[in-house]
């Protein structure tokens, strides 16, 4: 970013918004917006409470299990669809529908199916994350150079070797991109799931804070969630950059 010829680092804009928030908060215009400094103080206090810690453990566990499931199911499904026309024709429409549908509407259905507990949250993460992983994996497999497949065949690769040594690796950049987008959607899934169930993890905390107008803590929790989503997306991006070197070589 450049202002009046001076290069300003990107983080500076964040600082400007924080200051703006602080001023608006100090003016005491709305009960919804406490000063930013108060939010920060609340965040520091919040992370020390046992209720936040146990909520975090619950949330992270549901998120991790849901993500693991969607990767374990999504990647093979995407590879199957990328390789086998029949599978693609059978499943393609559904994957497209689910990947663009407003999935929040389905969470109540999940509650009926899985009850008011962790299972519903896991199912929500899975439902939110899997489709983009399937679609990106499929796209990655589709884009593998045909000569790479021919090469494997001409040197007598077994079916297993073809998938494990060629297809999985050749599609890896797209698979990782899918997982990164899936993780971001998974965060949405875990939050929406918990908000709707409202008695588990962060959902329960959000419920408590907003009901009692504890806005500082409410915003603190929101910021922690945002930071978490950014952090994992950043981590996967680092991993992607490592495999990028061969994405360009295809």
């Amino acid at each position, binding site marked *: 970013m450049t202002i009046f010829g001076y290069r300003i680092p990107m983080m500076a804009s964040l600082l400007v918004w924080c200051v703006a928030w602080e001023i608006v908060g100090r003016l005491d215009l709305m009960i919804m917006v406490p000063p930013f400094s108060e939010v920060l103080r609340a965040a520091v206090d919040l992370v020390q409470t046992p209720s936040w810690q146990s909520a975090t453990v619950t949330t992270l566990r549901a998120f991790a299990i849901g993500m693991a499931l969607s990767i374990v199911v999504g990647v093979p499904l995407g590879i199957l669809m990328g390789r086998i026309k029949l599978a693609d024709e059978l499943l393609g429409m559904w994957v497209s529908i689910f990947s663009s549908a407003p999935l929040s509407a389905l969470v109540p259905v999940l509650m009926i199916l899985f009850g008011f507990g962790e299972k519903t949250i896991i199912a929500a993460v899975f439902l939110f994350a899997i489709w983009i992983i399937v679609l990106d994996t499929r796209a990655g497999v589709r884009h593998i150079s045909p000569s790479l497949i*021919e090469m494997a065949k001409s040197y007598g690769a077994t079916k297993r*070797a073809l998938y494990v040594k060629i297809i999985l690796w050749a599609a890896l950049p797209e698979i990782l991109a899918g997982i990164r987008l899936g993780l971001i959607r998974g965060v949405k899934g875990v939050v929406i799931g918990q908000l709707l169930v409202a008695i588990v993890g962060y959902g329960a905390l959000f419920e408590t804070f907003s009901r009692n107008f504890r806005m500082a803590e409410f915003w603190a929790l929101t910021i922690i969630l945002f930071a978490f989503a950014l952090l994992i997306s950043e981590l996967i991006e680092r991993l992607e950059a490592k495999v990028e*070197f061969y994405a360009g070589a295809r």
Partner: protein
Amino acid sequence: MRNATLRKGPTLMPEPVDAIVEVRGVSKSYGNVEALRGIDLDFPRGKLTSLLGPSGCGKTTLLKIIAGLVNADAGTISVNGRTVSKPGPERAFVFQDFALLPWATVLRNVAFGLELRGKAAAEREKIARHYIGEVGLAGFEDKYPHELSGGMRQRVGLARALSVDADVLLLDEPFSAVDEQNRRKFQEDLIRLRTTQNKTFIFVTHSIEEAVYISDRIVLLSPRPGRISQIIEPEIDRSVDPDRIHRDKHYLDTVEEIWQGLKQYVD
């Protein structure tokens, strides 16, 4: 369709006795397009045979049928007297776009054919190192394909094909994605490798000069449908300085003769 083969001129040679690859009555269509019609062809052992023709004459299709990568609609392919329909260890393929694993080093790429055949790591790497040296890439073992030039990448492809110790090497326009200077150097290396490696080479190209320069035998294919129009055996002494071949009268005459034959197909 043997009678489609025109045989004339001083370049005519008798039918070779020892054919390692025999193509009998091979036809192939893609939908309504007839790519190959009734191809009968023998490839003599230990020689370099080029399949030459304009685009659309089915030369790559024929090579891939021999490789077992494409199924013919009719006809048979036999290698060492045995009919084949799938890829086998007696044939190795060199790809136009190199087909290297971008995530693997030169060493692993060269050893990859052996890896797929289940050879132990230490042994396959020893063999791979040897052939990396043979194609002039010693010192590049730990580089990745994207760090190499086009010519060097194709050397990796060639080393991979040599490593599996196949009798027949099938090369699909291996130099078309390589720049001109590297191509010249590579062609010289190929002539040298052919004398040291004692293998049969089947080489697809659309370059007349390239075919005449390196081949013992040139099979000219005509397009739509792909058929054999002429077989030429250039009598060029390749033991001399490679640069002299390009000025050799016989070389120039043969190039001209082929050009006259192919001219009619250029639109």
